[in-house]
């Protein structure tokens, strides 16, 4: 009886750390998603430089899909498969003179990690990189890196993306109010 109690007690104690780290593991799960790309790790845009920041994750994505199901079923269907939308747009400080080089390096990292280039544009100092991550012939994520003049935009969309549906959706899409000069309306 005494031995059984000790075994049970040790078992419970052994289980506790796993329970405590469960929340941390949940966060790590998204970073292990093939479509995840850590925009923060690029260290190109600092908090003070940000003009637009979007960070939508799993539970909110489900709410967005549900909220738009009736009024915009195409948008809802595209969003429903997503797990995260991260956007960081801003004008880096004067000290960031190697933005183009930084973006090129980020593109190389993406390719080394198995991302497929969809668009690569180098126009003078400007850069546009659009990458998709495919797993079993399904797009699991998209990363967009844009440097236009002194403005920088970084986007990472995590989750299953139907590119055809996305293409149909964004072909007639507005909603760039507040974007600033970087390819906003009227540009």
């Amino acid at each position: 009886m005494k031995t059984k109690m000790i075994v049970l007690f040790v078992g419970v104690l052994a289980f506790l750390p796993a329970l405590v780290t469960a929340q941390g593991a949940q966060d790590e799960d998204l970073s292990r998603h093939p479509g995840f790309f850590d925009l923060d790790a690029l260290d190109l845009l600092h908090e003070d430089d940000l003009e637009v920041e979007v960070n939508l994750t799993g539970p909110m994505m489900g709410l967005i899909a549900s909220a738009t199901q009736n009024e915009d079923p195409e948008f809802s269907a595209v969003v429903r498969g997503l797990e995260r939308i991260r956007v960081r747009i801003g004008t880096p400080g004067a000290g960031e003179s190697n933005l183009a080089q930084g973006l090129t390096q980020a593109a190389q990292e993406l390719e080394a990690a198995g991302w497929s280039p969809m668009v690569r544009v180098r126009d003078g100092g400007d850069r546009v990189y659009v990458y998709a991550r495919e797993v079993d012939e399904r797009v699991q994520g998209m990363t967009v890196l844009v440097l236009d003049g002194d403005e920088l935009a970084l986007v990472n969309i995590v989750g299953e993306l139907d590119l055809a549906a996305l293409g149909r959706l964004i072909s007639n899409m507005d909603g760039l109010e507040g974007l600033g000069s970087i390819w906003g309306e009227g540009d």
Partner: protein
Amino acid sequence: MTKLREKPCQWADERLEPYLEGELSPADARALEGHLGSCARCRQEEASAREIAAELRGLPALDTPRRVLRGVEEKAQGRGLFRWKGPLFWVPVSSGVAATLLIVVAAFLLRPAPKEPVPDQAEVAAAVAEARFALAFVGQVSRRTGSTLREEQLKPWVLAPLAAVVVSPGQGAGEKPSLEEI
């Protein structure tokens, strides 16, 4: 030990109290009663002793505080609460500690999960706008790069060959430019 025949009054004094308590042997009691019958001094001693005993029995009985009794018992037995550490002592103690810890752990494991704050309608509406914004931005990038690509590709594939036809036939009919070249 005093002998009755040598010092009979001293012998009687030594046995008077046990006699009054009824603790004297029958033989000694008979001998003492015989002496009392013949000695006035010892009869007076016996009367005084009976009187004192009666007065003592008449005094009120006082209760001893429990803690004093427990202290006396512990002192007498030479042990405190935790001085006895035999194996039988630790079984209930360790079981109690283990049971308490298990209850605490079980309460921790079975506690209700913290409720995620439910976003209100305004927050969801803002999130919808942000999601639309993000996808619209991706669309804008696609359109912008698509038009750029078309313009850039027109030069080597359409305009340059046309110019080459005019200026220098065969010039400009090279390979399809790679994205790196663009």
